[in-house]
């Protein structure tokens, strides 16, 4: 009997989670269109309701009413199962992401690790979507998503491990409680930067949307999907974006901790602040090239995340004062920034060098001809 009651409570919790996440996705669609519009000096949606607030509803209705085409040559079973894997792994991690001290469906002592583990399974859905569509762009996109997402998973996992070392726990509640005196962004700014960038790459937001880039692989794994099937991928992408923003808030910005207001309000405020930065990045940066993306992952992000884990462990082991970690973290960030700046400005420096040599040669010719 108690088992049945437990089951009923779980079902109710999942239903509430589904409803809340659907509302969140609607709000994100509206916010993204408005924020991008403002960034590009236009208004965004204005016709549907006050401030275009009903635009996401109109979008959803349009998507569901569209014809759902299944290609003849596709492997039907894989074609059907791929969106399910993607969306289930997107929803499943929300079971243990807390929105407040007690606002969580199931409190898990290994919560952070659980989230990381099931986030990886979602990648599989993208690879299978590419394969099952029997489309060359789909397969290229699937390969790209496998390469990109596995590469960027490593920094995410390592930085999460560094935070777990600092908090001495994988329990999200304890991680937030450990940040009651100062949020971890103060001691680990390097970790925040790595986690945010790698998180963007994980969910395929715009500077890193290589695997479904329209101009390169015409939609990648999603190329043959339409109507309701495509909207499932769309839903998963927004839920994952929200999850990365929520995790950034929980791991680095002190979670629901804050003066005055209720904890859920603080959590939502911090999460939406991170989301706005995500949209800002999308509106600002052009897409990377695939080789640049992979080189950035393996030459910059992975070494830096190893450095983060090591400094967190050293800080913890020798019980150093907290500002040493801040300094070590900023040194790592500075060195990485300097190396990237040198690489970025290398062509300009080479041009300047050649011009200097040409000028010197011209001068010697001029002086030799005058004598």
């Amino acid at each position, binding site marked *: 009997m108690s088992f049945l009651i437990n089951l009923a409570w779980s079902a109710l919790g999942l239903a509430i989670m589904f409803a809340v996440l659907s509302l969140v996705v609607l709000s994100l669609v509206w916010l993204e269109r408005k924020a991008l519009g403002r960034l590009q000096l236009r208004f965004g949606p204005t016709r549907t309701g006050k401030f275009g607030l009903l635009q996401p509803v109109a979008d959803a209705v349009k998507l569901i009413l569209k014809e759902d085409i299944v290609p003849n040559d596709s492997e039907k079973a894989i074609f059907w199962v791929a969106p399910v894997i993607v969306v289930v792994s997107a929803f499943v991690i929300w079971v243990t992401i807390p929105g407040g001290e007690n606002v969580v469906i199931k409190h*898990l*002592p290994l919560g952070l*690790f659980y989230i990381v583990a099931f986030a990886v399974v979602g990648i*599989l859905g993208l*690879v299978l979507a590419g*394969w099952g569509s029997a489309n060359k762009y789909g397969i290229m996109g699937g390969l790209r998503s496998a390469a990109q997402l*596995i590469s960027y998973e490593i920094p995410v996992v390592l930085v999460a491990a560094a935070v777990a070392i600092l908090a001495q726990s994988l329990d999200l509640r304890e991680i937030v409680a450990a940040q009651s005196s100062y949020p971890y962004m103060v001691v680990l700014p390097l970790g925040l930067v790595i986690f945010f960038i790698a998180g963007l790459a994980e969910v395929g937001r715009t500077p890193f949307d290589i695997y479904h880039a329209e101009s390169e692989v015409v939609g990648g794994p999603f190329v043959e999907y339409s109507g309701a099937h495509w909207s499932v991928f769309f839903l998963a992408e927004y839920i994952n974006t929200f999850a990365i923003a929520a995790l950034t808030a929980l791991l680095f910005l002190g979670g629901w901790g804050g003066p005055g207001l209720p904890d859920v309000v603080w959590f939502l405020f911090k999460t939406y602040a991170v989301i706005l930065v995500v949209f800002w990045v999308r509106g600002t940066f052009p897409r990377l090239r695939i080789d640049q993306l992979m080189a950035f992952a393996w030459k910059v992000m992975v070494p830096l995340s190893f450095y983060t884990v090591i400094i967190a462990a050293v800080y913890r082991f020798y019980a150093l004062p907290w500002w040493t970690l801040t300094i070590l973290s900023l040194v790592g960030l500075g060195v990485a920034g300097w190396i990237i700046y040198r690489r970025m400005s290398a062509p300009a420096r080479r041009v300047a060098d050649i011009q200097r040599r040409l000028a010197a040669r011209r001068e010697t010719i001029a002086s030799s001809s005058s004598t």
Partner: protein
Amino acid sequence: MQLALFVIVTILTLGGALGVVATRNVVHAALFLLLSLLGAAGVYLLLFAEFLALVQVLIYGGAVIIVVLFAVMLTRSSEYPRITDNRQWPLALITAAALSVILGAAFWLAPDLATEPQAPAFTGLAASLFTKWALPFEIASLVLLVALIGAIIIARVQSSTTADNSPVEPEG
């Protein structure tokens, strides 16, 4: 309740494993392997080894299967002859039998399996892994390193032979 879950998980694991060897399509085989590995994670979960179950999902369910699919998609299966028989099958049979004997013996000799949650499982695991079992742990990572270097060597040799397009003399 426990038994019912165990039966489901066992069917998942063994059925997936059977599917891996029965199917002709490599991608389907990889998917069946995923089913089997997730079933194994379910077995760990039923033994209250939550951490091990999550490791299973992360490494095998996620990373390994994705890398397998990646490799399968990069190769053109039509270029290779379809092999249905292999002269090494007695060797495989011996290996499988030896493995099952060792695992069975380990199962019989092992102390009783956990039937209730063990609270400090995670920290206890870390402590024993990095102090008592530190050497086997390091050897396991050495094996992975050897595999990695071996893969690089094989890849390099192949790329140098395909790079020069000189015709190969047929033997005999």
